[in-house]
């Protein structure tokens, strides 16, 4: 296929996994770090998980909260569908949020399937933690943001 | 890293979740 097509690129991701390392994060728990310099607007990793309907995601979120599984690994694709990486998915779920991120998430439609890909927003140097803005909806009970960026908004939601 | 997510299953592709018949039921006598 066309080497520039999203389909081709996203499948290259699997074979040529960006040199990314899983390690302790200064932001929160564990995170992913670049092990090589990554140019701007490069596909870094797909956020993979279980595709579920919105209402199923709402029910699960309540169940996870009841069980104290705090951080949400639910990623909304569109008004109908959510990707849930809480129990099944890949390690993109460990990417931390930052209010001044070096990456961004993009929903691609490939062969009719919507998929989430994390792209570099700017050049990322070796050893830098990979982050993107979760863009959580504003909610009542707040989750403190620990990104430490100058422009930090103080909360994830 | 899977050690940090108990009973976590790694997936290569997104997996479409097949809902159970009772997916939305709270109680079912």
């Amino acid at each position, binding site marked *: 296929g066309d080497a520039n097509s999203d389909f081709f690129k996203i499948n290259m991701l699997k074979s040529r996994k960006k040199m990314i390392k899983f390690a302790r994060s200064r932001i929160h728990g564990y995170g992913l770090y670049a092990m090589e310099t990554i140019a701007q607007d490069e596909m870094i990793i797909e956020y993979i998980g279980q595709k579920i*309907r919105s*209402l199923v995601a709402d029910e699960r979120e309540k169940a996870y909260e009841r069980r104290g599984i705090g951080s949400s690994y639910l990623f909304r694709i569109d008004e109908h569908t959510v990707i849930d990486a809480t129990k099944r998915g890949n390690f993109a779920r460990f990417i931390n949020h930052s209010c001044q991120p070096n990456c961004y998430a993009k929903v691609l439609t490939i062969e009719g399937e919507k998929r989430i890909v994390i792209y570099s927003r700017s050049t990322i140097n070796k050893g830098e933690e990979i982050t993107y803005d979760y863009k959580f909806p504003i909610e009542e009970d707040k989750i403190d943001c620990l990104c430490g960026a100058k422009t930090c908004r103080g909360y994830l939601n | 890293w899977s050690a940090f997510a108990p009973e976590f299953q790694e997936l290569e592709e997104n997996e479409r979740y097949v809902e159970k018949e009772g*997916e939305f039921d*709270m109680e079912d*006598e």
Partner: protein
Amino acid sequence: YVNVSTNDHAYQLQISNLTITGHEGYAMARASHGVAKGTWYFEVNFDDQPDDSHIRIGWSTCHAVLQAPVGYNKFSYGWRSKCGTKFHEAKGKKYHAGGFKKGDVLGCLIHLPVDKKTLVPPNQ
């Protein structure tokens, strides 16, 4: 004529005239007309039932969630083909043992007593 509504249904259900076809996960389609008082009844032909698939039918107000089965919250009352359980607010109770299946004709009745005290305006 009462039809299946062409817009008051979950987007993933196929509607053609009076036939509703769903493929996975419970979702709801409602009728083109509602009722507000009196006693009403409708019938459903259960045309097709691929292995271990089930349907739920019943009565719902316009506030019930379309992306869920009838009986999921307080705005609807449902009856399930599997075990014939009745549902309201997602709570299943025994109702009609054995349930119903493909080929059955099912009736749903609703009785909305007109309350003499509250002056329910005519034809509300």
